[in-house]
């Protein structure tokens, strides 16, 4: 069963937040991720890490919601990086075209490092 979210990781910097995907990304947990990402973007985050550490399975409904999150972030000028994505899930994302739209990082730290550079770049450049 998908792990309940007891709260999301606090924003690691004013502009960056980390959202944990949970063990099973399906409709409900996908919507939770979507909700948290929207909330973070609305509160000024320009970069988000969605961390898949411990994610065992992602289903196609979950993928469709993740695509929606990417759309929303793009429209808001925010950037998303997926971290700790298992090899099998990477293949799934490749198959469904997500990897063309989002950067992957091996770890949460690596994702944050990438995004710190992004947020340091002034908007409009």
């Amino acid at each position, binding site marked *: *069963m*998908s792990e*309940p979210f007891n709260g999301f990781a606090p924003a690691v910097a004013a502009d960056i937040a980390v959202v944990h995907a949970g063990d*099973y990304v*399906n409709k*409900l947990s996908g*919507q*939770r*991720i*979507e*909700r*948290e990402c929207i909330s973070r973007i609305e509160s000024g985050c320009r970069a988000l890490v969605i961390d898949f550490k411990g994610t065992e*399975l992602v*289903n*196609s*409904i979950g*993928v*469709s919601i993740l*695509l*929606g999150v990417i*759309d929303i972030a793009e429209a808001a000028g925010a950037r998303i990086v997926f971290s700790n994505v298992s*090899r*099998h899930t990477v293949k*799934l994302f490749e*198959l*469904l*075209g*997500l990897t063309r*739209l989002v950067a992957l990082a091996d770890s949460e730290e690596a994702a944050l490092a990438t995004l710190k550079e992004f947020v340091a770049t002034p908007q409009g450049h």
Partner: protein
Amino acid sequence: MPAKTPKARRILARTAPEMFVGRGDALRELTALASPKAGHQSLVLLSAPQAGVSELLRQTFDELFRQRGGASPIYFAFARTDHVATAAARRFLHTFLTQLVAHRRDDPALVPASPTLRALLDLVAPSDYEWVESLVQKFERAVGDADERALVRVCLSAPQAAASRGVRTVVMLDDVHLSERLRGEIELGPEVAHAAVQAGVPFVLAGLRRRMLDILNGTASLVGLDGLRKLHLDRLNERDARTLVENLAQRHGVALGDETRDLAVEQLESSPYLMSALVEAARDGEVQLTSFREFQSLYVDELLGGRIHRRYTGVLEEIAPSIANRRNLLRVLHESASNVGGKSPVEVWMKRLGVDAIEFERVMRLLHMHELASFHATFVETTPGVVWRDFLQAGYRLQVAAEPRALVVADTLVETLKRAPRQMARHYRRESALKLGDLMRRFDFERVPASLLHYDRYARLYRGVARDEVESGLEAETELVRLPQIVHAASCASFHPPMLQFCDEERCSVAHGFDTTSYAEADEVVWIAAEVESKLEAGRALAELWLDRLEGVAHACGFERVRFWLISREGFSADAAELLNEREAFGSCREQLELLSARLGQASEEGAGEKAADEFAMELPMGEDTELIAAHTVEQIARRMEFQPEAINQIKTALVEACINASEHSLSTERKIYNRFRVEDDKLVITVSSRGVAVPAILSENGAHADRNGLGTNEATKGRRGWGLKLIRTLMDDVEFERVDDGTRLRMTKYLRK
């Protein structure tokens, strides 16, 4: 070892008591009449045709007979073969005394016997001898005087005579509607009603619901008749009907599949009579009922020459005794059934039948009584029952159009087979509908959180939030909407039939009510609610289309104050929600509806299932992430087979997608997914099936497109769903869709590569 319960002996009942289903409440009500506490209370049992009322009365008889020392049960059925009222009355007296003596002697063998009245006097208990002899003497005098009225009254006074000597009986008169057909100087119906009201013992007057009260009242309304309790007996509910078919099949040793069982219930309209006829025919013909083909073959045989045929033919013979008139009747019934709504003008009927007004009225009365057609002032409507319409179609082709029998048999069989999946799909759609009419009927001025009727608010506040948190949030909401009190709700199509072009009848409802308790004209309001079909959030164009449709209904029906309410399972897009707000319409998703329903106090019910397995097999309830359970199970199996970790992940993902596909598309009413895992030397074969609407494989293959650049927003969104089959095909080695009698089966294979 559990103790064996001795089987209750059957006397008149045709079904063992433990196999008699769906009539528990009615049976209890009837048997309670025997209690002295019930006093003299009689009741009128108004039955739908083929609802099994006779068996209910026979079961009541047996139950009361077994209760020694209590009231004596009497069961008497009117019959056409009596021809005249006096013959029926004489037979009643004879039956009454025979069954009374049998009960008081505890001798069930006497019930079917036909001793003469004088012979019965020899068997009667000494304490009863005097009054029975007196009754027999009165009867013999009335016969000698050739006084019909006196004879009928003496016979019908038997229960009163017994009661006056402290002998309590429960008199059950079946097929009372047939008393109308008996010739004689007197109308038997009112005499029977009079006896029931005056006898001082409980009577049960049973018969076809559309004629009973008219027959009992006769030409003048009888004082006291209106005070009798009325009990309505309709066909069985679906669950009981399924149990009945299973019981019948078991009793007669007929193999029966779940799919054919459900088809039998649906097609035979939960009629105990028709279901018994079919299963008994299967027994007689040594036919199994494990596939739609077997079922429909037998059904067509029964329709064209078996019990079903004889039943309808018998009714038509009663209505139109001459062959020529019967042919005309068949023709006009068939023509009417073929018209839109099954209706034809009265003039057409009269012309086709070629009868005068009196005969026309008689024909209409009988068609109405048997619920084969209804007469509405200017037109006649043929009843839309499936079996009745099939009978008409086949009967017309054979007897009026004189087509070759082989052709009619072949066509009927082919048509019924083609129809079966559609019929079941319709059934599943009906069952899966949100039942908006039922929900609105429960509106009673409650104040509910506004977010339950405004999807945009709901999505903003609660999308992705756990259910218990949503419920707490709703409790804390301060903006509330006051619901009206609904006084009547029905399908939209019943107000405006053209709506059937756009949706199933049960997916759009009209509810009339009031906004305040003053019931003033200004407070009258009509809610029109429609279930919008959309796999995703419904877009603006779809919402607009539906609002326009509902406005059209309101305009056509002359509704003045109207509230529109659209329900889309996944809710509405932002621009659709904006439109709803602009047009002051409500919009809800399925979750909102469930929450609203819960606030109105409805308990949900979910049936429990059976389990059978002789290989790796599992049965999952749909929803609640149960696909993960299947994934973990298959993981264990695949590990034992020594699949590589990557392959195991692929199998798990494919299985999850297959389960989601089954849940999303089948509209299954039983809400179960059946998984089977067959382990072979070189492969694992997984079968995922669900019972419900058969989903064409092509539907699932559509839109398997992840390239968002080439698609518009809506199409891109649509493309993001429907990836399931594409994924499964990619992850597994062989994938095969198989359409089965009642749903879809997906078989997928993964080969072992060590």
